[in-house]
């Protein structure tokens, strides 16, 4: 909490400095009207100067709304930070709260020195500066981005894990960029080119192989995020955005695209981001994030303070397209009721759902289950584990359960 007394003193000092303090009107003696009406102190003096924050910041009373790290991360530059979903409303993630996963730290790239090379199986290898790229026609689209390691619950989880811990590696932004299909058309993709290597300009020089069909479908070379240029930790000045695909494929600090006739078998698509099945065979090229939802309130740390009306609200998404339905259960899955979907409902985008509920004060098991336009229904944990085993690690999308206790405490139940 900020020190309100200090804030008041500094403002009065500032007023004196700027010559606005009025002689004979003492701030130490509240007027009769103020005392009678019990007016709050912020109505008895001028607030902060309009120009105090050229780049605005949240209220100091919101300073607990921040990203956090999950678990031990021995290398601070190969680490992640989670979005505080329990504190957010609507579907847009503020840029300072978008989740982060770096493999070699966040580079500080001078956009005037950053270039994108497009080569390999193309007719005309091209080099683009940022000014060259932003001359292409731009598009703005709202899409979620989810780390494929989001929701690490295949093996276990802790009862006190918040929704930030369990689901905070998903975020959503309005991304502005140029269509990758336009850029590739300029270079001329050759027949037989089926895969595209994307490489970042970070210390990891992270690389992934992307199907050319996806690159020509809805891929964006994004340079802006929620109206401003990308944040450094989101790939400034340029990132690949592949709507619906796992976050790791959306290569940040994009410096190179190489077209080829086969996948490049990089470390991030062999050793990592592959999923081991119970028979010892691993699934490779797991791109699309499946239908998924979670209740963000009530959730651990955000339980109802008293019985009575309690809106159940959360987020649903699918990498296959639009969310068409979200059902909510308060009894562990015996009875399901349709939640209302808040407009806008966009493809490959977070969708906010809400259900009015009256809590009787007794124990409850809160769940949400979404269905996407492909017809995929979010599975139960039992069904997911039966299909994939417990060493799959990535792409966990099972129905989540919050246990609400009579006192209002909420914990994770598996």
């Amino acid at each position, binding site marked *: 909490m900020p020190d309100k007394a200090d804030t008041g003193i500094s403002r009065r000092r500032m007023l004196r400095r700027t010559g606005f303090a009025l002689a004979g009107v003492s701030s130490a003696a509240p007027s009769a009207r103020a005392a009678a009406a019990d007016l709050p102190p912020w109505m008895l003096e001028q607030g902060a100067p309009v120009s105090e924050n050229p780049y605005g910041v949240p209220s100091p009373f919101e300073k607990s709304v921040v990203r956090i790290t999950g678990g031990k991360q021995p290398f601070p530059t190969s680490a992640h930070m989670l979005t505080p979903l329990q504190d957010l409303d609507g579907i847009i993630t503020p840029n300072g709260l978008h989740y982060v996963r770096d493999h070699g730290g966040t580079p500080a790239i001078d956009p005037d020195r950053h270039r994108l090379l497009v080569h390999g199986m193309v007719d005309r290898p091209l080099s683009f500066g940022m000014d*060259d790229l932003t001359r292409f026609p731009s598009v703005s689209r709202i899409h979620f981005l989810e780390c494929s390691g989001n929701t690490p619950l295949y093996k276990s989880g802790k009862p006190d894990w918040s929704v930030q811990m369990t689901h905070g590696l998903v975020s959503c932004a309005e991304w502005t960029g140029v269509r990758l299909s336009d850029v590739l058309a300029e270079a001329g993709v050759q027949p037989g080119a089926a895969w595209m290597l994307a490489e970042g300009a970070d210390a990891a020089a992270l690389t992934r192989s992307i199907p050319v069909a996806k690159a020509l479908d809805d891929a964006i070379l994004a340079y802006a995020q929620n109206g401003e240029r990308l944040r450094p930790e989101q790939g400034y000045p340029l990132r690949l955005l592949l709507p619906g695909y796992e976050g790791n494929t959306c290569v940040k600090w994009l410096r190179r695209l190489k077209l080829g006739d086969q996948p490049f078998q990089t470390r991030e698509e062999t050793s990592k981001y592959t999923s*081991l099945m119970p028979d010892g065979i691993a699934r490779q090229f797991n791109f*699309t994030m499946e239908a998924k939802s979670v209740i963000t309130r009530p959730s651990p740390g955000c339980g109802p303070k008293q019985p009575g009306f309690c809106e159940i609200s959360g987020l649903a998404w699918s990498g296959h397209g639009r969310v068409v339905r979200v059902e909510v259960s308060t009894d562990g899955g015996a009875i399901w009721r349709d939640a209302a979907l808040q407009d806008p409902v966009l493809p490959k985008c977070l969708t906010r759902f809400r259900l009015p509920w009256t809590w009787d004060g007794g124990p409850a098991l809160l769940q949400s289950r979404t269905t996407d336009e492909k017809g995929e229904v979010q599975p139960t944990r039992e069904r997911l584990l039966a299909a994939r085993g417990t060493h799959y690690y990535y792409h966990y999308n099972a129905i989540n359960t919050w246990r609400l206790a009579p006192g209002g405490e909420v914990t994770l139940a598996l």
Partner: protein
Amino acid sequence: MRCNILLLAALGLTAAAPPPSGGFGRPATPAEIAAADIDVRADGAGLPPGHGSVAEGSALFASACAACHGDQGQKPLTGLLRLTGGRGTLATANPVQTVGSYWPYATTLFDYIRRAMPFPAPGSLSDDQVYALTAYVLRLNDIVPDGTELDAATLPKVRMPNRDGFVPNPDDAH
């Protein structure tokens, strides 16, 4: 749908109205392509000239890698995965995924070391040193014998134990 997209692309068309062609960016020079084109494919395409031996890799590993990975690649720092061991565990209740037990291609080792290792100083190794470290890590996993020297011709021929252990995700086929 995908076929249509590919066909349109082959014809130089996209579903949305494309911008007028020409005048975007500039031709990439052979020199700048060569400088940036560092990826190595599973068939060995992209491997540079040079060579390195298990013995050379052993000495270099001790000074450049062991602090994080352990002198035998066996005891990494907390949070790091082992480089060695785990053979035969993938279908068990406690799979251990390492270079030797899990990685399908030896060329990936070269590509990754060259682009991202050592962690505090990526890009600081010569191609000869990367060949040597690749040889040593493969030796630690009993995939190549002592005395092995690797180069662009021999590295792609190294067959990894889990070479056939991967299938494309059936729900995400492209």
